């Protein structure tokens, strides 16, 4: 070929390449690929609804963020551990009492209630790592109903909220160890001798979900990290990883990473429950506590690669996967073998009387998933997905059983890897912690967004990425940004629950509720003024409250509406008070009229055409 003909040929090819797309008739492959494009897969048209709820923990915002999948749209914020004027949470008496003395919480791992190892759509449990609390959100109305804590003998409830198969317990383990009982001083230099950690079983009332401390298990001062509950063969058991088996009290970055192994706790929670029934506990800090060194059969230690993070039970309940954060493997253990070793008492030693199992003989395999493995989720089709923090990726790999060849080189069971942006922490597949994962979407919760959004200054949001896991290769679908800081999430099928949209009048048993103007009242007893007020489009009744300086004022405000989305708010000028009442709801606010003068109050939550007119006066005589 002469140079000239070569040039002509190249020109011809270029022309063909330029012309071909233009020649494609409408409705051909281009249109088909648009329908299967990531945009189409995540597009929820106006008026259409998402398929799934995504309940993000809000980290140190203390709240739960509710998003829809596949759109990734933020739909609502459920305030839990911090005030939230948007819904008036933390201003009325009930929520103020729940929050207690704390203005914030550090929410980590949300857990949905389960029946028979499946989400039952009743409650969402969340923990507060900072103030040692666990809260319950009722999914009937998406409201926080209880905050339990600070839990006695516990510091840092990081290792929760792990719900047992039938919501018997929400299990909690402590990230921090402190001298017990809490409030006792001991020199941190005497960490090993004086400090202790704790595993707690919070009993869940099966009727109304009320949480109470059922039992506690005293542990050495390891830092309990993450856990999961068993099912199937591991039913009745629970697992936690720990770091700092070195029991260092300072510079943990270096001092808690010296040893090649840390311990996972294998806890027989049914045995713990029984031990308490049998009177083997001692009441400590007001709750029954077991010393597992003295009560055998409750707790075992399993060495795992050092400084592990997640330990996740697969949907069958047989495979337990611990990720070695600093080692590039996911360690798979067979619970049936663990069970056998426990039954045959095959221990390599003990720590403070707690038997230690053999890592080597119980390890099914170390799967070379990649750098910085943290957490593992399952699709229910035999695949596992591990988040890789250092590598900024998700690895898909196959659970055992493995062929002899695969065992020789476990690289062969690593099936796919997808980059995420950046430094992924948790990941979630709907139902991964149940017997029946949904197996459709995976949400990667990335710790750093590093400017992938239009700039909002130095305080950057976190990034979440939606990944399609229905094919043999993972597919990146969409990206969304959240406020700090999702640590884990739960995904629930939207049709699993039917939340109410108004509080039915017949269910309002508040003795101070008023439903018509003639029931409203202002009553004075000494220097206490009680107002029974109603809110309706577009007025408060009464709309003038006359008091004297120094009076204690209690307002019981009922929103008498029974129409969806007809919310009213009551904001009182210069009184740091804002309460929002949903249709059919009664809330109580209490405050002192400290300042003389006349203070307008008004509806804060836009309600109707005459919303601006919905106002009144608090008149305070000196």
């Amino acid at each position, binding site marked *: 070929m002469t140079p000239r003909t070569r040039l002509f040929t190249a020109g011809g090819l270029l022309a063909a390449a330029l012309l071909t797309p233009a020649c494609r008739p409408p409705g051909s492959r281009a249109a088909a690929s648009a329908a299967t494009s990531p945009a189409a897969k995540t597009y929820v048209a106006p008026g259409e609804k998402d398929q799934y709820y995504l309940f993000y923990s809000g980290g140190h915002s203390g709240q739960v963020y509710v998003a829809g999948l596949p759109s990734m749209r933020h739909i609502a914020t459920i305030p839990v551990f911090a005030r939230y004027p948007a819904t008036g949470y933390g201003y009325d008496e009930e929520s103020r009492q729940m929050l207690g003395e704390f203005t914030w919480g550090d929410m980590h791992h949300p857990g949905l209630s389960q029946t028979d190892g499946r989400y039952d759509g009743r409650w969402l449990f969340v923990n507060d790592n900072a103030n040692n609390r666990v809260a319950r959100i009722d999914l009937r109305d998406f409201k926080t109903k209880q905050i339990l804590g600070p839990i006695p003998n516990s510091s840092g409830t990081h290792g929760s909220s792990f719900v047992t198969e039938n919501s018997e317990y929400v299990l909690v383990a402590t990230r921090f160890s402190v001298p017990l009982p809490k409030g006792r001083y001991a020199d941190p230099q005497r960490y090993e001798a004086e400090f202790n950690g704790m595993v707690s079983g919070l009993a869940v009332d099966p009727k109304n979900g009320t949480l109470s401390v059922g039992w506690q298990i005293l542990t050495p001062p390891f830092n309990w990290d993450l856990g999961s509950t068993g099912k199937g063969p591991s039913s009745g058991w629970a697992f936690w990883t720990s770091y700092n088996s070195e029991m260092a009290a300072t510079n943990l970055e270096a001092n808690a990473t010296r040893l090649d192994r840390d311990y996972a706790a294998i806890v027989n929670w049914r045995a713990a429950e029984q031990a308490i029934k049998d009177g083997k506990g001692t009441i400590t800090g007001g709750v029954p506590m077991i010393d597992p060194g003295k009560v055998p059969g409750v707790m075992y230690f399993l060495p795992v690669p050092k*400084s592990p993070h997640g330990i996740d039970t697969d949907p069958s309940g047989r495979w337990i996967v611990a990720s070695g954060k600093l080692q590039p493997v996911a360690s798979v253990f067979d619970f049936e073998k663990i069970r056998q070793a426990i039954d045959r008492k095959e221990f390599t030693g003990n720590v403070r009387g707690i038997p230690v199992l053999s890592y080597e003989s119980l390890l099914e395999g170390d799967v070379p998933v990649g750098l910085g493995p943290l957490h593992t989720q399952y699709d229910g089709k035999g695949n596992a997905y591990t988040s890789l923090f250092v590598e900024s990726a998700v690895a898909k790999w196959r659970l055992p059983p493995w062929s002899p060849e695969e065992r020789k080189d476990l690289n062969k069971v690593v099936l796919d890897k997808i980059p995420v942006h950046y*430094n992924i922490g948790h990941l979630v597949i709907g139902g991964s912690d149940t017997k029946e994962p949904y197996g459709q979407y995976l949400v990667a919760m990335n710790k*750093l967004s590093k400017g992938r959004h239009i700039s909002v200054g130095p305080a950057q949001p976190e990034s979440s990425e939606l990944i399609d896991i229905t094919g043999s290769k993972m597919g990146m679908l969409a990206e969304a940004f959240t406020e700090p800081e999702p640590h884990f999430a739960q995904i629930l099928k939207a049709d699993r629950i039917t939340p109410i949209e108004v509080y039915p009048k017949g269910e309002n048993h508040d003795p101070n509720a008023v439903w018509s103007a003639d029931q409203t009242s202002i009553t004075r007893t000494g220097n206490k003024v009680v107002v029974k007020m109603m809110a309706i489009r577009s007025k408060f009744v009464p709309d003038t409250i006359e008091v004297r300086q120094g009076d204690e004022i209690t307002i019981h405000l009922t929103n008498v509406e029974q129409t969806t989305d007809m919310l009213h708010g009551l904001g009182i000028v210069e009184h740091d008070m804002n309460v929002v009442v949903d249709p059919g709801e009664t809330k109580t606010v209490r405050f002192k009229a400290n300042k003389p003068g006349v203070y307008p109050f008004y509806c804060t939550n836009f309600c109707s055409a005459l919303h601006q007119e919905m106002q009144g006066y608090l008149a305070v005589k000196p």
Partner: protein
Amino acid sequence: MQAILRAIDAFLERPLSAASRGLVLLGMVALIGGGLLPLWRIQLVAPQYEEGLTLVMYSHAIAAGHGGQDLNEINTLNHYIGMKPIVQSDFAEMTWMPFAIGIFALLALRAAAVGRIRHLVDLGVLFLYFGMFSLATFAYRLWSYGHHLDPHAPMRIAPFTPILVGQQQIANFVQSSLPLAGTACMGAFLMTVLTAIWLSRSEAS
């Protein structure tokens, strides 16, 4: 034997042609350029560092990307694997290299002014030694950073040698290392010296 030595002697005593002298002067300019321009670039790219962390080595200084911040970032990351912080004051060559380059420039000037071939041979041999020595110390430093890892570091990794020319994967980073314009200038200087000798090989004494 005697004849060969005498021939070498005579060759070394040959004066430099005008062209050779001009070339050496040109080489001297390149050499000074080598002293001022960046010599080498080391870059680390990872998913979360798409734009890369960059170190640029000069004969007299280390410059880091993002207004110098990349050096801090690299040192912060390296502490996880127990690598010694990279600080300019540890690079003794960055004080003697500019001095040595000045000496070579003066020697080149002398060769151009009063030069005979032996001046260029001295210059070439010494400069080659200087070049090899500098490269070797640079390679040794890279090796040393990757092989003296604190055993108490949070992450223990096998000792490694950052690559000198080319690229390689180190954990989640792709490390690449390439000579830059300054090194090319240094090479050009050596080439001008050699070419000047070649051009004056038959110059009558």
